[in-house]
């Protein structure tokens, strides 16, 4: 019985407190995305592996940061729609692993008549790690956001029901 009351209080508390946990995870996702692009633009080889993908990646990173920040602010207010956007962004972060890091890791360039791997193992591992963490943060933030938003929505609906009964 006591546990039920505590659960009810915890949900009731959500009416006045922000969903900071989910919002902070979205911010963390931005941070690791920053680590990722700083790492990818700082190539280990002197002949920079540069093509249209890198240009696209710069634009995508900018959009990602803006969108993730917007999601963070909206999820803070228990806006469920933006949780789905963040979830999609998390999935995209995982897909990105197969675009630049994988491609660059498999590609070679000739530097001073020596065939050199564009992205060496160390840089590849770091890129992989940052994208995975960023993606996990997005997905976790989104899932927490969805769960809490739904819980709050259901609770507020019962409050409305109680008011009508009164």
């Amino acid at each position, binding site marked *: 019985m006591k546990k039920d009351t*505590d659960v009810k*209080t*915890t949900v*009731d*508390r959500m*009416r*006045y*407190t922000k969903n900071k946990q989910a919002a902070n995870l979205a911010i963390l996702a931005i941070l690791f995305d920053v680590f990722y692009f700083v790492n990818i633009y700082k190539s280990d080889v002197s002949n920079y592996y540069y093509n249209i993908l890198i240009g696209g990646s710069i634009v995508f990173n900018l959009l990602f940061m803006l969108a993730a920040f917007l999601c963070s602010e909206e999820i803070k207010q228990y806006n469920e729609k933006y949780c789905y956007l963040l979830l999609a962004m998390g999935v995209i972060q995982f897909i990105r692993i197969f675009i630049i890091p994988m491609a660059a890791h498999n590609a070679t360039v000739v530097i001073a008549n020596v065939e050199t791997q564009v992205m060496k193992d160390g840089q590849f591992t770091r890129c992989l790690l940052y994208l995975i963490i960023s993606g996990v943060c997005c997905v976790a933030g989104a899932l927490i956001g969805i769960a809490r938003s739904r819980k709050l929505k259901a609770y507020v609906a019962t409050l409305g029901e109680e008011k009508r009964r009164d």
Partner: protein
Amino acid sequence: MANLKLQHIDKIYDGGVKAVEDFNLDVQDGELIVLVGPSGCGKSTTLRMVAGLEDISNGHLLLDGKDITRVPAKDRDMAMVFQNYALYGHMTIYENMAFSLTLRKEDPNVIHKKVLAAAEILNLTTQLNKKPGQLSGGQRQRVAMGRAIVRTPKVFLFDEPLSNLDAKLRGSTRREILLLHKRLQATMMYVTHDQTEALTLADRIVCMSMGKVQQIGTPLELYDHPANIFVATFIGLPPMNMFDVTVRADHLEGKGFKAPLDAESKKILKNYVGKEIVLGVRPENLVEGKDIAVKVTDNENLGMNTLVHGHIQDGDKTFDRVVCKLRGWCNYKSGDTAMISINRMHFFDKDTTVAITGKESK
């Protein structure tokens, strides 16, 4: 709640300036004490010393018998409400009220219950998700009070909490503070320079001037039996009229008037016959009569009463200024003569300014 004792408290600033001198007070459990006095009299300094925001130069401060003179402010278990609200503008009302408990790392569910209970008391439940900037002055002050309530402190301290509010809001917020006191039964110290607040709120009033306590008593005691000329003129609106008079066997002789003495007044003044004293008469104790002529300079109709301003008149000569609060609607014009009588007198020693009660003659 708590019992608070201030024993021989002094506040001496650098350079030897004495802001508060030999302040003694025993605040009973659940009592609402109001410190009142003009600006610069040391009332806020006294409150800040109690809160721990100012060091106490001399004396002792006891809370429930425990000496807390040197205890830091955070460990005194007192909550202070400031004139300027001191709310965090970027936080919601809920977060503002919960802030002190969050810093103490209390259980969020317990904090939630306390905040909701305080909001219910202060009628702020619908405002909890708003920011302070979206609230009116009165609502902001209620939030400041709520922030104090959630801490359930031993003593509440209020430093001129209504000074930033307009007259109408001040009246309603004052009633809310009074209801809050009745509901919480908490020990409270309240600082104001507004005598109306002091008279309506206080269980006991401490009247201060120049860093010294002038009188401690119930509102009625201060109004009816002021200890000296300062208290007599400070408490009551309009202030008490003061006249220099000479005591005769059966009357008082002032500049331009004679006022008959009743038996009780004669008894009080029996050692002052032939001497000069100060006669104090409240404007509401001057009634239409036949003893004193007043040359009217101004007539202010207030509805139930009329304030008649003028000078004591004797023939063509005019003397001391006088304000009468006459019942009903009067239509005196400037230059008219109004005849008045005194129905209640206060006597003060001219040298010491202390009230003459008749007891000092024994």
